[in-house]
């Protein structure tokens, strides 16, 4: 028996957090800071989940972050910056990316190439310049977005039980748009089609067509980026996730990596502990699960008879979202030499988002890309004379379901080559002759590292009926097992880095309140 095998963790904890992704990290930091006895278990040997980095040759690649929302400048801190700096004092550094995005649409009838700056007024000006006469309607989009943001804060502050009269009085515009798609509301605001296309640039970050995506969440996201800018960590996401790790330990919390939970033990509808594949048996009455409800109910809860029927129904009713495909390229020419002057590029065959989404349902070349040239925000992120380019697209996981292992590497290379060519055509930058390092992540790669159901990283799709408002207003009613909370991109705040961290915090607060109440009773 090796010394490693002598190590087991058989102990009891106030709360066990499963998964050290964005949601798990925020939840654990909060509870550890409050002085609870907490243990976070992570299957991988690093924190972060998809919020990490990896090294190939002379390059350290960002795994999935394009830019963080809700961070903001010192003078206008967003909720994430307040969490990092004021709440936890994380030892981490962020910089603002230079512009919102450059949108290149290649369809001959829709041709567009426009750079959009941050700042609500700047955005309105840039769109007006491209689409004269759009100013008033686009301004109304942002005014409405602001009101929606305020309504979200109000609903959040009531724990999902808003006063309907107050909502009607103070947040009428929010109420009247909450049930509609972005398409329906943008039409109602009278925004010209071409201006809509520009405003819809961020659509792929939520990953469903403008005709299906709930307006309130889309508008809130656009407004958040416009107002606070997009921010990235100077040491990749691994920089802040490792800073979380440091802080959690400093707060007295415990983290174990290479430790995969395979059972969440439930008795009489209540959490009683967890077991790991390493053989640990841990007692706890509270679990915050950074894994999805889909994975948790179908695989983790033990015994299976403890999974209530309603939990399966809940999971089956939701529309499982997208997974992705990322080409990480280390180039042996600088961004300047290549003529790549922007940080973020959205390259779309068309702004008919239904068509683009449809292209993600098969292995045909994807029609929408979101690309990042990291050096244009972090000039020193790679050696002089080089730069880092990430090209991201999305897939419905079903597109990959019938891939055979023997075809896997060829398929991923073929898709990658088509996307590299697409990027070259759109930007004019000769990428392929400068590839020094290249790595490609597919849905299979995301499944490999996260073990999320089908490798999905975009949570459940936020159509209006399952967008943030109904999810928030169902809070508490969707706890099917006592002591179990979820945290992360599949939960109430929807997917995305900031949302996942914010959600982790809410779940931690709810769990903390329950524990305090119990202690008071005792």
């Amino acid at each position, binding site marked *: 028996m*090796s*010394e*490693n095998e002598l*190590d*087991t*963790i058989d102990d009891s904890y106030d709360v066990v957090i499963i998964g050290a992704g964005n949601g798990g990290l925020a939840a654990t930091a909060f509870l550890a800071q409050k002085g609870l006895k907490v243990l976070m278990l992570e299957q991988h*040997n*690093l924190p972060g989940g998809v919020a990490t980095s990896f090294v190939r*040759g002379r390059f*350290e690649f960002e795994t999935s972050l394009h830019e963080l929302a809700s961070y903001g400048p010192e003078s206008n801190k967003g909720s994430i910056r307040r969490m990092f700096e004021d709440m936890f004092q994380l030892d981490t550094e962020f910089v603002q990316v230079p512009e919102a995005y450059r949108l290149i649409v290649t369809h001959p009838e829709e041709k567009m190439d426009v750079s959009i700056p941050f700042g609500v007024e700047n955005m309105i000006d840039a769109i007006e310049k491209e689409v004269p006469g759009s100013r008033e309607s686009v301004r*109304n989009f942002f005014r*409405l977005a602001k009101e929606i943001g305020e309504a979200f804060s109000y609903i959040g502050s009531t724990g999902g039980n808003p006063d309907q009269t107050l909502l009607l009085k103070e947040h009428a*515009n929010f*109420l*009247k748009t*909450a*049930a*509609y798609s972005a398409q329906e*509301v943008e039409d*109602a605001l009278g925004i010209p089609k071409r201006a809509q296309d520009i405003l819809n640039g961020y659509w792929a970050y939520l990953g469903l067509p403008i005709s299906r995506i709930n307006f309130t969440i889309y508008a809130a996201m656009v407004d958040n980026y416009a107002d606070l800018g997009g921010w990235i960590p100077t*040491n*990749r996401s*691994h*920089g802040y996730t*490792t*800073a979380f790790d*440091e802080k959690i330990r400093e707060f007295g919390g415990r983290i*174990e990596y*290479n430790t*995969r939970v395979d059972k969440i033990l439930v008795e009489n509808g209540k959490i009683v502990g967890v077991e790991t594949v390493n053989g640990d048996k841990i007692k706890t009455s509270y679990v915050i699960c950074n894994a999805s409800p889909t994975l948790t109910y179908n695989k983790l809860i033990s015994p299976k008879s403890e*999974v209530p029927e309603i939990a*399966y*129904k*809940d999971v*089956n*009713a939701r529309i499982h979202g997208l997974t992705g495909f990322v080409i990480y390229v280390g180039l*042996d020419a600088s961004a300047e030499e290549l003529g790549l002057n922007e940080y973020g590029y959205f390259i779309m065959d068309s702004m008919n988002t239904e068509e683009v989404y449809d292209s993600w349902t098969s292995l045909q070349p994807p029609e929408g890309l979101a690309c990042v040239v990291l050096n244009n925000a972090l000039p020193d992120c790679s050696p002089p004379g080089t730069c880092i380019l990430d090209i991201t697209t999305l897939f419905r996981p079903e597109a*990959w*379901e*019938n891939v055979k*292992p023997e075809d896997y590497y060829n398929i991923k*290379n073929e898709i990658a*080559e088509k996307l590299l060519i697409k990027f070259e055509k759109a930007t004019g930058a000769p990428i*392929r002759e*400068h*590839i*020094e*390092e*290249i790595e490609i992540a597919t849905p*299979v790669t995301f*499944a*490999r590292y996260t073990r999320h159901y*089908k*490798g999905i990283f975009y949570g459940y799709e936020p159509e*209006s*009926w399952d967008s943030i*408002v*109904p*999810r928030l*207003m169902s809070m508490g009613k969707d706890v099917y097992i006592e002591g179990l909370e979820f945290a992360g991109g599949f939960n109430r705040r929807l997917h995305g880095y900031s949302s996942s961290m914010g959600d982790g915090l809410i779940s931690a607060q709810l769990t903390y309140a329950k524990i305090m109440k119990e202690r008071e009773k005792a």
Partner: protein
Amino acid sequence: MNKENEEKLEVTVKSNTKDLFAFTKLVAERQKRIERASSEPITKDPINDLARKIHPDVQYLVIDEIKVETKSTKTFKLVPDPDSSTKELAIFRSGQYLSLKVKVNDVTITRPYSIASSPKDALNGFYELTIKKEEHGFLTSYIWDNWKVGAKIESSGPEGFFYYDPLRDFKHIVGIAGGSGITPFKSIALSIIEGNIDARLTVLYGSSDEDDIIYYDEFQALEKDYPDKFKFIHVLSCEVVSLEGCETGFITSDLIEKYCDVKTSSFFICGPQIMYNFLDNEMAKFELPPKKIRKEAFGEVKDVLSIPGYPQELAEKTFKITVHVGNYSKVIPAIATESILVALERANFAPPAKCRSGECGFCRSKLISGEVFISPISDWRRKADKKFNYFHPCSSYPTSDIEIVIPRTL
């Protein structure tokens, strides 16, 4: 903009009543959809199944055949262990390796070996590894004594980044191999024949003696059957040479230029550390961009005293390592010139470790206190790992007593 002067925004999507009514129905609608949904558990996840097929955590293998290649090398044919959960072998890209986990006298160690067989062979149920017996080699002595047909071997999935990439590399691969560093090129050659790599292959293969050459006959046959695809040049460093058509001495820049157009070739180098030291100087003469030269990680640095910056005065010392893993702690001794990973393995710890070259990241550990020397030629740490004192035990050496947290074994 002056907000007070602005008219209050009034939005209507369909009609005032309809819009408000739609809101009141949102939660009810969600509830209704959930109630109506199926209550069947989800039992299938083809994407995770595929991920586990391509990247298994572990493969249980058994030796099916042993071929003696030279006086010091053998080829082991490995197939799935019928008594295990391994039913098929993971596909790989020619040039990748398997990390074998071997128990030698109750001490568990790992070692990476390049796969010599082809990806198609893996689909047909076998891998081949050609292993050279090292003089005084702790592991290879054990292998020579104990690995018979039927012996069970625990392996990782395929790992490593030393493979041809059509998106990056030129269509002429120039392999430069030393000793058992030839093994990945056999796999690459087979992939070319099987149509999985669309490129030509020229290999400059350095051996110290004629009877040390591995795969001589196979390479002769390949060259004969596919003259437009392959060229194998044997470079012998021994004094007396009887072999026809071979080169003598070392693999110099002149020799390389003699057999390829340097500008339109991608170089793949695999061999012992000492060959890399020599080739670095030779290759530098071509002033090639880094993208054209790929080197396989050569495993642990053999002689840390030769690495620039190593504090020579510590060579004779032994330090204490306080090791923490999960709930367990122990103090173990460590010889200054041996990697911390070797010290851990000697003390019967078995942390995850695959490449043993600082590249794969699996042994990533936290330095709580004390100092280590990190071999600069095997330092692939992330920026934040440097900042927060993480290191890779396989490429780090203690320069004081240290306290560390090592990863658990999953």
